[in-house]
């Protein structure tokens, strides 16, 4: 069984329902299936070894994803903002790739020396081609290749096989569960695992997708209202911008039944403001990694509601949790010596399940002998199986022998009205080992003094968690998937200290 089966089932159940694009001119599920099969015919004739995609999320993405699957070729969506030399390096790591590129990226794609077909050209060829059936892809073959941005210099290429993706979709989605009027708004890029996951889960659910490739908060809100979007997924920085744009006003998106967020840590103050701005919307936190075929833990709407309405600090605290793991996923919290810890104890989170790949092109699998995958995230599980993430193992700052989690200090700073974004890092210090430096981006037009911000944090947390320094910047460095690049800040701060 391959991911192609997801589309053939969807086309069977919802042939004439709009799958992609707006109500007025959308592509139906049966047309998507036809296009995918015609696309596969073209790809087989082309004799490429793999398919690379340089472009934004749009109706082309699911078409290309299912076409590649039907042709038995892996699809590698690449970050379209990368410079030519970097793209060339990534393409060189693939097997005989053919590159499909959005027209605005054709030139940079061609500069890599690889074979490029423009998206328009490919789609019009697809529409002119008669689909010829071919053999179904092997469940063990690679369906998607995703380069992680991660914390290491050279991106690793995660191999997601049909079996992993199927396990994820079948384990978390009920077939044809969407109603005719349901609409998902896709604003995450295709090179983010959620960009691929959403194409698969929405097709299997029979849910139509509309796209917003160039995110800006005003347009996002407008589209959610005009297309009567019923479900959307955003990364934390997008939600922060929507909340900032609303500036205390209600979002007024009556059709938006659910809003999922994930990809990076959601600062608590942002979430609390969002819950107030979207009072009728069900919020869901999704935690997952590229290596685990996306979501492995969900904190659902009920948990969000219970937490926000509760006086019980334990229930309230759940707002900061990643929720409970999805069916099919097992967890272990391991100490540094590898021993498995009980509830309440913090260690590294390891996970196991059929949707977990843990495999990289070139370096192979990092699963241990029993199939467990190390997430490199610090975490603990409470008595009821709620997962609390403590930031990456390497983010913890050790100042004067005390362990400090940047998240706690960052959340405290974010409650100050002048602070828009912040990252707290540890910089080498002769006296303390590491000192705490807060890098702050102020809201437009806002002002704040260093002393004021330090006093603000001291008022909320213990003295030792007060930043030793506060540095102001216009922006913070983020990975393409919205995680703060802490090592870059540390390097910049260390260099500045030396001068």
């Amino acid at each position: 069984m391959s991911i192609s089966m997801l589309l053939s089932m969807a086309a069977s159940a919802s042939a004439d329902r709009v799958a992609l694009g707006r109500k007025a001119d959308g592509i139906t599920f049966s047309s998507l299936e036809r296009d995918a099969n015609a696309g596969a015919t073209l790809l087989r004739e082309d004799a490429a070894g793999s398919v690379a995609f340089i472009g934004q999320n749009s109706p082309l993405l699911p078409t290309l994803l299912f076409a590649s699957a039907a042709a038995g070729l892996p699809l590698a969506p690449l970050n379209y903002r990368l410079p030519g030399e970097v793209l060339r390096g990534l393409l060189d790591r693939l097997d005989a790739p053919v590159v499909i590129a959005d027209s605005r990226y054709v030139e940079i794609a061609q500069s890599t020396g690889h074979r490029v077909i423009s998206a328009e050209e490919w789609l019009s060829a697809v529409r002119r081609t008669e689909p010829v059936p071919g053999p179904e892809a092997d469940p063990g073959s690679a369906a998607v290749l995703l380069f992680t941005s991660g914390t290491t210099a050279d991106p690793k290429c995660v191999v997601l096989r049909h079996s992993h993706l199927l396990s994820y979709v079948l384990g978390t989605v009920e077939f044809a569960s969407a109603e005719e009027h349901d609409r998902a708004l896709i604003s995450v890029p295709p090179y983010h695992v959620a960009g691929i996951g959403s194409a698969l889960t929405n097709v299997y659910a029979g849910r139509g997708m509309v796209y917003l490739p160039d995110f800006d908060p005003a347009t996002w809100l407008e589209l959610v209202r005009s297309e009567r979007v019923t479900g959307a997924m955003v990364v934390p920085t997008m939600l922060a911008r929507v909340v900032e744009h609303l500036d205390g006003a209600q979002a007024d998106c009556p059709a938006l039944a659910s809003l999922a967020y994930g990809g990076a840590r959601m600062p608590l103050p942002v979430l609390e403001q969002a819950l107030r701005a979207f009072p009728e919307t069900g919020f869901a936190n999704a935690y997952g990694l590229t290596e685990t075929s996306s979501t492995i833990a969900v904190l659902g709407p009920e948990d969000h509601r219970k937490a926000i309405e509760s006086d019980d600090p334990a229930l309230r605290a759940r707002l900061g949790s990643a929720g409970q793991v999805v069916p099919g996923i097992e967890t272990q919290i391991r100490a540094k010596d590898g021993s498995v810890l009980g509830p309440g104890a913090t260690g590294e989170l390891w996970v196991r399940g059929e949707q977990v790949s843990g495999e990289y092109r070139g370096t192979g699998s990092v699963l241990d002998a029993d199939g467990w995958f190390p997430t490199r995230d610090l975490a603990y599980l409470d008595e009821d199986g709620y997962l609390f993430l403590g930031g990456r193992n390497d983010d913890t700052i050790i100042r004067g022998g005390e362990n400090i989690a940047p998240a706690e200090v960052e959340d405290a700073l974010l409650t100050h009205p002048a602070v828009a974004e912040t990252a707290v890092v540890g910089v080498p210090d002769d006296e303390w080992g590491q000192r705490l430096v807060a890098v702050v981006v102020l809201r437009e037009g806002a002002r704040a003094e260093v002393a004021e911000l330090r006093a603000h944090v001291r008022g909320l947390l213990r003295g030792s968690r007060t930043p030793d320094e506060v540095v102001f910047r216009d922006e913070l460095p983020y990975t393409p998937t919205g995680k703060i690049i802490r090592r870059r800040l540390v390097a910049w701060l260390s260099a500045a200290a030396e001068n």
Partner: protein
Amino acid sequence: MSTEAVGLRAGLRLKSQVCATEVIVVRPGTRPLSLCCGGVQMLGREASGPAGVTPVAERMRGSLLGKRYTHPEDDAVEVLVTVSGEGTLSDGETDLVLKEAKPLPASD
């Protein structure tokens, strides 16, 4: 008509001999089963069976596309219908039952 209890494995694809029904085993359960459709043993999807097999009339109540079926005595069995048809899914004489859907919130 003879039916044989066989240990299933996850990923196994089976088809009905008497209707269009096709299934995939999502979870095999804890013991061997005689997976039948329309009262007749199901075959591997790629296998070819004899022509003109007659279904058992009382076992043609239909299977639903995309639904999961489980065994009333073993909820570790999970079979997903990938092509719907007229036959009823059973383990020999024991009809499989619809597995209750416990949908998760959409996360991507």
